[in-house]
Every structure is written in C-alpha cells, then in structure tokens.
C-alpha cells in the first residue's frame, strides 16, 4: 500500500533567502580558485594512491613513497591543464582517468630519467632503461 500523494509548498521567502545569501566560501573568485586547487591536489593525490596500489597489486612497478610528492605535483599540472572550470562536477574517477591519460608508465620513466640527470656530477650514470 502506498502513502497519499504529497505536494510540498515552498514559500517564496524561503527561496529568496537562499538566492540572496551568498555563502562565505564563494564570495570572490580568488579564494574559490585556491580552494579548487586544494581539492585538485587532494583528489589527484587520492587517485594516484589508488593507481599505485593497483599497479603494485598487479605486480607492476609503481612508485616509492619518496617519489609520491613529485608524482602528485606532476598529476596536479596535468589535472589543471585538462579539467574544466568547475572541479566539483568531477569525481575522483574522472580526475583519475584524466591523470592517467597523461601520466603513463613512460612518463614516470621519463620523470625518473629527468631526476637522475639533475643529480650532481659524481652520481650514478645508470639509466633505469
């Protein structure tokens, strides 16, 4: 058995109150941009952790803990380049997909080679390749 059909009434004053009140966290564009950036960093970080876990579970080389920060920075650059204006329309899965589309195993190898090349003279010359 079902309930009696309900229609709700929403007074215009309630709608106007919400329309007219601008919550503090979206008053200006600048803080919003900062907040979006923070969210991108968090989302990319979570997404990359998941990728790393997945790679390791599959027996593939992921990256080590001391590389995480740098890889995340790389992920953030990619995400910022690819993401449209509103980060909140994206789930971590989409950010993950966008990130993965650019951060491939090759990119990571290239990144490692770049880091190795940057090391001061006298360091190892071995390339991972």
């Amino acid at each position, binding site marked *: *058995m*079902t*309930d*009696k*059909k*309900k*229609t*709700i*009434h*929403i*007074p*215009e004053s*309630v*709608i106007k*109150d*919400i*329309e007219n009140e601008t*919550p*503090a*966290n*979206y008053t200006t564009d600048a803080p919003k941009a900062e*907040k979006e950036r*923070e*969210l991108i960093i*968090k*989302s990319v970080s979570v997404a990359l952790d998941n990728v790393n876990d997945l790679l390791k579970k599959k027996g593939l080389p992921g990256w080590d803990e001391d590389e995480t920060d740098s890889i995340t920075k790389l992920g953030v650059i990619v995400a910022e380049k690819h993401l449209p204006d*509103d980060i*909140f*329309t994206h*789930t*971590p*899965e989409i950010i993950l997909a966008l990130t993965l589309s650019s951060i491939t195993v090759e990119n990571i190898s290239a990144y490692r080679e770049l880091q190795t090349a940057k090391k001061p003279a006298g360091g190892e010359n071995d390339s991972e390749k």
Partner: protein
Amino acid sequence: MTAKNKQRIFGIVCGMSGKGKTHFITEYLIPELLKRQKPVIALDLMDEYPGAPLQGFSGLVEHIRKNDNRLDSGMYAVKTKSSKDTINTLRLIRAAEQPVSVIIEEAHILFSDPDIKKQLKNTLQEITLYGRHYEIDCILSSQRPNLLSTTMRSQAQFFVSFRQEERADLDYLAVRSPLAAEKIATLAKKEFFTFGDPPDGFSEMKTDKINQLKK
C-alpha cells in the same frame, strides 16, 4: 501501511566505482522511495538519474515557481554543476521543512573540501538531526564511506555496500559490522552486502547477507 513505513529513511550506499551503486539506487531504492509519494530529489552530479531534469539550483527554483511554489511528488534530477548548486538545493530542502526524499550522489567529494564541509555540516547536520520530524529521507551514495561526516554515518539506519578494498573504509565498516567488513572485500561485481535496519518494502535488501543485483 506499517508504522515503520512512516519513518524517515536514512541510508548509505557505498562501494568502489563501477560495482553497481547507482544501478541499485535507480532500480531498487528510487521505486521504493516513490511509493512514499513524496518528491524525490537526486543531486545528480553525473547525469545518471531518471526523472525531470532540472539544471542546478536555478532550474529547481524555476520549476517550483512555475508550479505556484509547489513541488509535486515524483522524481527530480537536479543537475548539480557546482558546489553552490549542491549547497543551495540542500538548504532549500532543509528550509522547506516538509516531506522530501533526497539522494546525494558521490557524497564523499563534498566532504573532501574543508569549506564545503563546513557548509554541509550546518545544512546536512540539520537535515540529519531534525529531518526526522519533517520526514526528510536521505540516501547518500559514496565510494568512500570513511570520508563522510561522523554525524551522517552515525545516523544511517542501514548500509548497502558493494565491493570495497580501501583499508580505511573496511576498517570503518568493520566497526559497524565485523561480518560486513569480512564479506565486502570479496564481493563480485553486482553483489552487495546490507546491514543495519532497512525499511519495510526494500525487499532487495536481505540484511547481513550477500545479495545480488537481479537486473
């Protein structure tokens, strides 16, 4: 109608991506919620829900105003394209203080931003704590139950979990149900485990058992 049917519904549907959460909500939960003859409002982040599509908070308001400030029972998919859409829609639901069912998709995303979290804390906490008096049902969908607010989680009457692998989420679920945590990490696609106290009429949800999506 039993007394239990009259109660507000408050549940969490969780699990990894692609395991069947949204399918479960659209195929099983929404038809049951619609039987309660209230407006069912989905905060439709990913354009996945049925019902009248409304473009953000302004679309919802436009629809309400066109209908003499009324919202009839039925399904509404509010396409929330910004955090403002989400917060304002929830504020409207809270301020209306009337029987509504609300479905919040990918709720963990909202809780990952400190300021949105603050906004949500005020609004959702009020919906959570006082919504019972106004018969405001609430279904949260999330890949990461551990990232939801403690208040929301503590008020959930029931959990429907598809496969989870993340340690923190399993640890949290283990606190709520040790049996669930043991089973959830091994669920196949479309399998789900329910625990807690689901409302009458939700026949797909056999508690403390592994269930399977039939469609």
